[in-house]
């Protein structure tokens, strides 16, 4: 049988089933088809995802057209999710009690989408705005994680789960407000925004009044904090709890709860013992000199960056390197690549100067729809690497894409590197001009709201000989894509953080502006290897 006819018939049955117009006879055929053919099942799965995408897009479209909706809706709602949490909690409480069960209650659920009327389509914007994190890694010095468990980056949000710190000092800020310093070697399991389980290690906690009730469990009992500073040493033969300020409840199996107050300490080994010790702050000094150590390590990182930069700039294939270390008020970005003489400085339009990854590192902030850096990248590239350090602040709910670097216009060979509204990366090479067709390579999702505000190294390589496009995040390979057509890229005039359909364009065009900061951009005339990429993101 003609396979094309097959697909056509399958698709007809799929839509009839989805739309509820299917006849009993057709339904029987569809069920038999799905039972017998693995290929038909795969098609059916893809069809359902296509339907979900069309529905979600339609809702976003309606949202875009609706006047008076805040442009930054998605991010605002994300931020609001924290403060409005208790509203949802009440709902869940009722649900648990079994008092309200039904559609009315469901309508309160923040993510319900398709069953609502179009007037309620603000909901669609929330689909991306979720997080399962309970804390964040706020600071750290000389961190060495057990990578087989997890290796979170600085400022990374932390979901519930295990962390094993081999050495160094990490500061974890729980969303409920408690701050916990951990000195390695240590093992801790995050449970919720206000609770964790400590297996071993040294811990120092600061619990401000709003975080009262913060609970640390240990193999020797539970510690409930009533608004204090305390230290917990589980490394010693006889584990100890030290209270520096305020009050702490110590719950141990089979004995009565004990309260410890300012200046006291207790051993956890013998639960029955009433012997109180004197708190020893010196044993937890690792949490006090953290500020100084963090500043020192950031200075070191910046010095290190300056050193390796010289080496990097000498790479013969490096065409453009914008290091953003231009003087205050500069309206152009010098090209630091030693072999990039032919390429002029980038011109800044709008944008504000700000601080980059470390003190001393400069960056540009892109905020408004006009902010951009214009750049000319002459030449044809059968292979290239494009890379940038960026800090994304939000993804606009009404905007399909945000430009990282996009060629002006839609000519064959134009390069369009952008973040899609889902948070995935897309590298597009324009393959046909009239009507325009772009060969798009789309990565898995990189930017969930959890990643907003973090510095991330993004890179893409394109290689006609290897027939491959690759995406890298923070120096690690994210995805590989087989080249669709051997179109030779010609970036020509391009913009960082924005896009113009043509230089003399006067009509309205889709908004593509990037909302966030950038402090480094490079373009190589070769596809860097995985090892080189790892180095580049250091």
């Amino acid at each position, binding site marked *: 049988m003609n396979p094309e006819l097959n697909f*056509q018939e399958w*698709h*007809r049955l799929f*839509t009839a089933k*989805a739309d509820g117009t*299917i006849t009993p006879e057709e*339904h029987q055929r569809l*069920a038999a088809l*799905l*039972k017998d053919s*693995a290929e038909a*099942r*795969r098609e059916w*799965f*893809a069809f*359902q*995802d*296509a339907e*979900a*995408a*069309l529905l*979600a*897009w*339609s*809702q976003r*479209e309606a949202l875009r057209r609706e006047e008076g909706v805040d442009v930054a809706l998605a991010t605002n709602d994300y931020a609001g999710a924290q403060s409005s949490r208790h509203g949802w*909690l009440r709902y*869940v*409480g009722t*649900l*648990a009690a079994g008092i309200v*069960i039904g559609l009315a209650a469901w309508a309160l*659920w923040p*993510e*319900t989408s398709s*069953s609502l009327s*179009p007037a309620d*389509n603000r909901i669609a914007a929330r689909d991306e705005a979720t*997080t399962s994190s*309970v804390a964040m890694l706020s600071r750290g010095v000389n961190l060495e994680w057990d990578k087989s468990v997890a290796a979170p980056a600085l400022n990374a949000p932390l979901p*519930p*789960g*295990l962390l094993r710190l081999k050495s160094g000092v990490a500061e974890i800020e729980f969303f409920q407000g408690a701050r916990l310093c951990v000195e390695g070697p240590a093992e801790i*399991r995050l*449970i*919720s*925004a*206000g609770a964790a389980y400590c297996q071993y290690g040294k811990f120092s906690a600061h619990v401000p009044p709003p975080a009262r009730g913060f609970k640390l469990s240990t193999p020797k009992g539970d510690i409930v904090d009533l608004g204090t500073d305390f230290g917990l040493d589980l490394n010693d033969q006889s584990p100890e709890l030290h209270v520096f300020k305020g009050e702490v409840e110590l719950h141990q199996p089979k004995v009565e709860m004990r309260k410890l107050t300012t200046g006291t300490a207790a051993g956890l080994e013998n639960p029955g013992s009433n012997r109180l010790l004197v708190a020893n702050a010196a044993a937890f000094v690792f949490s006090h000199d953290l500020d100084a150590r963090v500043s020192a390590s950031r200075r070191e990182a910046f010095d290190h960056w300056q050193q390796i930069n010289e080496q990097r700039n000498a790479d013969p294939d490096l065409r453009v390197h914008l290091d953003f270390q231009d003087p205050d008020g500069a309206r152009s970005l010098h090209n630091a690549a030693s072999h990039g003489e032919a390429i002029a400085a980038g011109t800044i339009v709008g944008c504000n100067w700000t601080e980059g990854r470390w003190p001393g590192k400069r960056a540009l902030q892109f905020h408004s729809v006009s902010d951009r850096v214009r750049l000319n990248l002459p030449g044809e590239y059968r292979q290239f690497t494009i890379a940038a350090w960026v800090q994304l602040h939000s993804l606009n709910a009404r905007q399909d894409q945000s430009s990282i670097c996009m060629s002006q216009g839609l000519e064959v060979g134009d390069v369009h590197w952008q973040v*899609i509204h*889902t948070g*995935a990366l897309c590298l597009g090479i324009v393959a046909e001009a009239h009507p325009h*067709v*772009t060969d*798009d*390579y*789309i990565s*898995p999702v990189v930017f969930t709201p959890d990643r907003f505000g973090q510095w991330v190294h993004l890179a893409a390589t394109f290689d006609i000989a290897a027939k491959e496009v690759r995406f890298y995040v923070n120096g690690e390979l994210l*995805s*590989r*894509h087989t080249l669709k057509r051997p179109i030779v890229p010609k970036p020509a005039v391009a913009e960082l953080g924005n896009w113009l359909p043509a230089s003399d364009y006067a009509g309205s065009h889709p908004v593509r502006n990037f909302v966030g900061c950038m402090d480094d951009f490079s373009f190589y005339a070769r596809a860097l290897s995985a090892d080189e990429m790892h180095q580049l993101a250091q």
Partner: protein
Amino acid sequence: MAENAPDSPSSEQFITLLNAAHGRLLGFLRVMLGNSADAEDVLQRASMTIWRKFGEFDPSKDFFTWASSFAFYEAKNFQRVAARSRLHFDDDLLQRLAEERLPDLDQREARLAAMDRCLEELDAPGRELVREFYLNKTEIAALAERQGRAPQTLYNKLNALRRLLADCMKRKTTQEAGS
């Protein structure tokens, strides 16, 4: 863990986890039920079961995988109740679809992203028709009347578009090797 009190840490955790898994759970249910309205309906019911059982959830495990088993039983149940009047897949087929869909869901995000790109390449009238249809599914007749066309003609045009878009999405995703 203590009972699921409304302000306990576990309810916060439940909400964040369920929110994060919401899209994939819907995607999981869609392939068994065939349309989004039923999938929403069943997910609503399943959420209550998931909440009641949440005390048994091990936070070190994957929430979606754990929750999907409740969603599966809720889907089965839904079909049993609706069986008298509605066309539905039998339990064997449901089981098989559920099993194969779990690994398949890894491709969901890429498909959604690809479809958005395809829509961008579509002409304005095509986009308009898609938008009208998916926002007001039941009103294809009204739409036809507004455009002075026969409902069947419009529906055929729409389905041709859906086919075109599905092909485009496939083109943009199937050539990806690994991730």
